[in-house]
């Protein structure tokens, strides 16, 4: 197990380095410059001086400066579009916000999704099953800006139960959290339902029932554990996505998270910030995939961790 974790961790730097270089290449060939404004040109001498200040006058100069700085000091450098802030400061301020929101959304999605999926499987073909299927379909197909705007206008503006555009209390978490959780919740409910139906008709369940175990005990102890495995493999990428923020949900609720930087940094050609957010996202995806693999083995001891194999 320890060897497996070490092996996977050892792959991280290589994967992240590739991500860094590919992102850098894309960023560098994109037309436009972080210093350009649509209607006002900066004096060419000034522009050159600013480029030099940012070590951005040539691709070689950029690569000679920033990656080394990142490896030795963990510093991504200054944000080229918001020069008062370093990329590290921006990430450190927005990442906790996104992580909080993402965790809340995933927690909500997992608990409700698994419960709904299980109940639907048990009542297969019944009214609840039909109802949950329709609701999950709506959850998957409704775009988040529709859900977010509906929640905002109903619960915050009309009823005044929640504040608008503020951040800092548990209350501020609820609406964006729900908006962000609906899609993964719907997925989890459907994954659980399918897996549960599958497990319920398997031999060991019949055997357990035949041995005289109560239905609830069979479901709790045996079925759920097996039915949860597909959900678990979905949770890795879902968590990485939820915890690095959603541009749309953040925009509607004015949440100061990381999601906005994915879009704004590209629009601004803020090269250092783009690299920062992409690496953070990459790290999260790698980390959560590893965690999911570990949780897999932990939930289902039949799965063995092998170096070079794994389950993710």
């Amino acid at each position, binding site marked *: 197990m320890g060897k497996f974790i070490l092996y996977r961790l050892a792959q991280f730097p290589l994967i992240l380095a590739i991500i860094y270089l590919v992102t850098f290449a894309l960023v560098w060939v994109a037309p436009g410059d972080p210093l350009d404004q649509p209607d006002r040109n900066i004096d060419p001498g000034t522009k050159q001086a600013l480029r030099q200040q940012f070590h951005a006058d040539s691709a070689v100069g950029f690569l000679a400066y920033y990656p080394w700085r990142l490896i030795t000091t963990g510093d991504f450098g200054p944000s080229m579009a*918001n020069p008062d802030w370093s990329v590290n400061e921006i990430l450190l301020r927005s990442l906790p916000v996104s992580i909080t929101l993402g965790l809340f959304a995933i927690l909500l999605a997992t608990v409700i999704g698994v419960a709904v999926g299980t109940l639907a499987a048990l009542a297969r073909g019944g009214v609840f099953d039909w109802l949950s299927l329709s609701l999950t379909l709506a959850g998957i197909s409704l775009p988040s800006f529709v859900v977010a705007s509906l929640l905002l206008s109903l619960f915050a503006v009309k009823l005044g139960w929640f504040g608008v555009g503020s951040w800092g209390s548990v209350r501020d978490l609820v609406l964006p959290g729900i908006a962000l959780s609906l899609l993964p919740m719907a997925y989890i409910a459907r994954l659980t339902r399918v897996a549960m139906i599958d497990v319920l008709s398997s031999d060991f369940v019949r055997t357990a029932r035949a041995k005289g175990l109560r239905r609830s005990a069979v479901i709790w102890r045996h079925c759920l554990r097996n039915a949860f495995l597909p959900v678990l493999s979905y949770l890795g990428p879902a968590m990485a996505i939820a915890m690095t923020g959603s541009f749309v949900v953040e925009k509607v609720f004015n949440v100061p998270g990381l999601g906005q930087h994915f879009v704004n940094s590209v629009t601004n050609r803020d090269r250092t910030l783009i690299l920062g957010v992409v690496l953070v996202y990459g790290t999260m995806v790698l980390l959560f995939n590893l965690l999911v693999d570990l949780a897999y083995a932990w939930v289902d001891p039949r799965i063995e961790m092998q170096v070079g194999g794994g389950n993710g």
Partner: protein
Amino acid sequence: MTRLVLIPLVLLLLLAGALFWSGVTAEKPADLRWINAGDPKTLDPGSMSWGQDIRLASALWEGLYRFDSTSDQPQPGVAQSVDVSSDGCTYTFHLRPGALWSNGDPVVAGDFVFAWKRVLDQPAGYTSLLFYIDGAQEYCQNVQLAQQQLRDGADPSAISQPQFSLVGIHAVDDATLRVQLKHPVPYFLELCSFATFYPLHERSIAPDLISRHPVTGAIEIRQGFAKPPLVTNGPFTLSQWSYKQRIRLLKNPYYWGASEVSLNIIDVISAEDGFAAFQMYETGAVDWIADVNPEVAAKLVRANRDDFHVTTGFGTYYYEFLCDRTLPDGRANPFFDPRVRQAFARAIDKQTIVSNIVLTGEKASDTYIPRGIFANYDSPRGLSYDVPRARQLLEEAGYPGGQGFPKITLLYNTNAGHEAIAQYVRRQWLDHLGVQVALEGVEVKTFGALKEQKKFQICRASWIGDYSDPTTFSDKYLSFSQNNDAGWVNVEYDRLCAAASLEQDVHRRMALLEQAEQLLLDEAPLIPIYNYVNRVLRRPYVKGLQPNPRNQQDFRRLRIEKH
């Protein structure tokens, strides 16, 4: 089973931790909460160039002169008085004895010298405003040259030292600053109230953020200094800046005019999305939005809201022609001929654009400089909407009914509603002139780059002025201006502007600038479409907000009437 339950439990525990990590503690509520226009790009006055940054900076800093909402003219700020020499080139400022920094230190002439030198040493978007000062441009270029030579490996002893002593900025003593200009600049006091001319408190900048180049002596202040704790000299101090969340300003007790400042705490809330900002206003989370999103504004105009205010802005939306003899691809450029440009200009019904497309109270314009924003300046008449004349002009230029007109493209950026206007204009040119124009909508940064490299034939453009003088507009079309994207070269225009810069009599000076604009409008390197407006939403209990074209505010005078 316990293992399965543990997963949500661990998630819950993590959530509690994350909440704690990202949480904000309860604080005293602010007297005024308002939304500027997104988070400021920077609060470093020497490098700021965006309107929203400059608006906010005037709460934190004060120049020798300052914007005063009760007057058209800049009013004394740190300077108590000024003596101007008879040739209009030497300004001797006498500093106010009571002017203090927010840490209690007196504001001295050296603080201005330091800040202005730094703007020349470490140039940014508005450094060129300092080039009116004698020797400033040469010094700035020499610093850049010397640093380039050093980077290229030149021997430090062999390079020519930039001499700051040759620049016309001198601290005679702590209370006297003398500035020598290249030529008379009638709006120099106005410039002295602009962010680029604010002083800086050198001693409070952390030593690791500031350096002086060992060879050139150039000052460099590194990113991150303009954050709390920041020593400033304006009516407010920067107490907190939570990136993209909130800025909290506190009344500066050391400010010389503190007795006139009514508010104690101001919160500037960051909201990038116009609709989110509006919802915050509607639910009472903010009291004032300084710059309302156009789509929200259109709804507010329809709703006839009396807390929504539309006033004349400080800029113009227009289309610009590339006026070079040849196009970027080497073909002959039809727009080199002024008659073709005039024909295109006369074929657009601008009134329909403002009443059916833009919808937030903008005024259709026939002039480049918005009418009525400068005292003593009578705007000339531009080209009117006249389809028969447009057809005739095109025919005279050799394209009767648009026949034989080469394939051309209209460049615009796809954000902010430019596309709807472009489509309408394209239709008008097709219907009225018989000319097919292809539309090329690109993303904003690509647009900026294409435009600067003059890779366009016609493009959408806009210009927003900086200071209260017509030259803030007219300078853009000087043949040597770096912002003259049209590449329009007119010797007479340059001559009229140069004559105006030397003219001391305000009426004769304005007459020269009016002639220059008339020439610009007749020659039509551009087609003015409409003048911008300022769109402000504010609660009636917020007092002291004075509408003005630049949408700047005098934070000293803001107050909240009990409600």
